[in-house]
């Protein structure tokens, strides 16, 4: 992964190698939902190039710090999805009386 920080600290373009829309759009969403963000967007310059660019402009705090926070949020969200899903599966199994498949 490469990180390019241009102008002042609050604006940066991050280049993610070997990543695509999967992480691009989720990180963009998490950043967009943060009050520190004033602009965020991502692009995959060419579908045959395994590369994704993320542009972030914050209202003041360093862009890398805000991106870090967004990644932390993303981790916590996934963790919670996993926990909730496992609980729902366990609940479904007891309700159906079905044994563990494997």
């Amino acid at each position, binding site marked *: *992964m*490469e*990180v390019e*920080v241009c102008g002042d600290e609050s604006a940066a373009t*991050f280049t*993610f190698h070997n*990543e695509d*829309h*999967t*992480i691009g*759009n*989720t*990180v*963009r*969403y*998490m950043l*967009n*939902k*943060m*009050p520190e*963000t004033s602009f965020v967007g991502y692009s995959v310059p060419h579908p045959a190039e395994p590369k994704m660019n993320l542009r972030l402009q914050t209202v003041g705090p360093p862009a*890398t710090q805000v*991106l*870090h926070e967004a*990644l*932390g*949020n*993303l*981790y*916590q*969200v*996934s*963790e*919670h*999805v*996993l926990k*909730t*899903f*496992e*609980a*729902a*599966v366990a*609940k*479904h*199994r007891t309700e*159906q009386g*079905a044994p563990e*498949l*494997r």
Partner: protein
Amino acid sequence: MKHVSEGGLPAHLEKQRTRMFVKNAAPEHTSTVEAASAYAASGLENSFSIERFRRDFRVEIQSLSAEEAVFDLIGIDAALANAFRRILLAEVPTMAIEKVFILNNTSMIQDEVLAHRLGLIPIRADARVFQFRGDPPDDPNEYNVISFRLQVKCTKQRSSGASPGPAVVGCAPSTAGSGASSDAGLLGSRVTSGDLEWIPQGEQEERFRDAPIAPVHDDILIAKMRPGQEIELEAWCEKGIGKTHAKWSPVCTASYRLLPEITLPKPVTGDDATTLKGMCPTNVFDIEDLAGVPTATVARPRNCTMCRECIRHPGWDERVLLTRVKDHFIFSVESTGALPPETLFQESVKVLMQKASDIATLLKDATAGQQSEP
């Protein structure tokens, strides 16, 4: 500032925020309002908080079988739901045949086509206990390669115990069920996935005693042969992801749709109710007697495919309101058979978690490197 989900928006704006509208001409209000400051003018904030997410997010399992799982994710955004779907399709690892060593192939089917067909056969093996071979590939060992042998030969079936004579016409045991008359009297004319024989390496036999490795289905046709033709080869399965090649995709399909919500602003009664019920091809509506009046009710909204038939005729678009709930995803995951579908979804979430933490680490390294540069 109050959060927008706690109310405070005018009813019609709230509806546009949380629902998408299916109209005759086109869907409306399809996007999610994401920016944290989008409702600042109304004195409301729209930011993300993990506490709020933990409070509101729900999962409901609709059905679960060995092959397919249908479940609802409620209170999550399309950006995340779509990430899980994309990861399921392309980034949850499985095992698939990657290297084929052809010793002999006199069948009609060319070596490269045969190898490709072998690659697409789903293999019942838990990829989590195997390692990637990487690039350049590591030496093959019992932790990164599963080996199969295919050795088949097609012969004419002869009458039992008889000296060489004319071929007996009849269906050979191994071709039972083929039904094709051209296969009659032939042995081994149909090469199927069941002919693949697993050759355990090292301690694999011990490790997979409870669930021996084999193709998921035994009846996948690989090639057809005529008498005298034979195939002999060795095939190596390696761990990979669907992004590299679709043969490593662990799902037949992984898709989601938004929960349909159908409302009748004013009661639809009498003949109109019958008309409405008759219009819907998926049987969404029922007719109930409410105080002696036959009235249309929305009985099975989940059946709705949003085909818009019920709003196509003049005037009906005002009597039936078709909407979808923007944060309610009906997921359906159909596994190819290597792992149960619910496990696949759990793996996809773990992949996203891994990505988030890996990128955070890389980001730290990258910025540290940049600061130390002159």
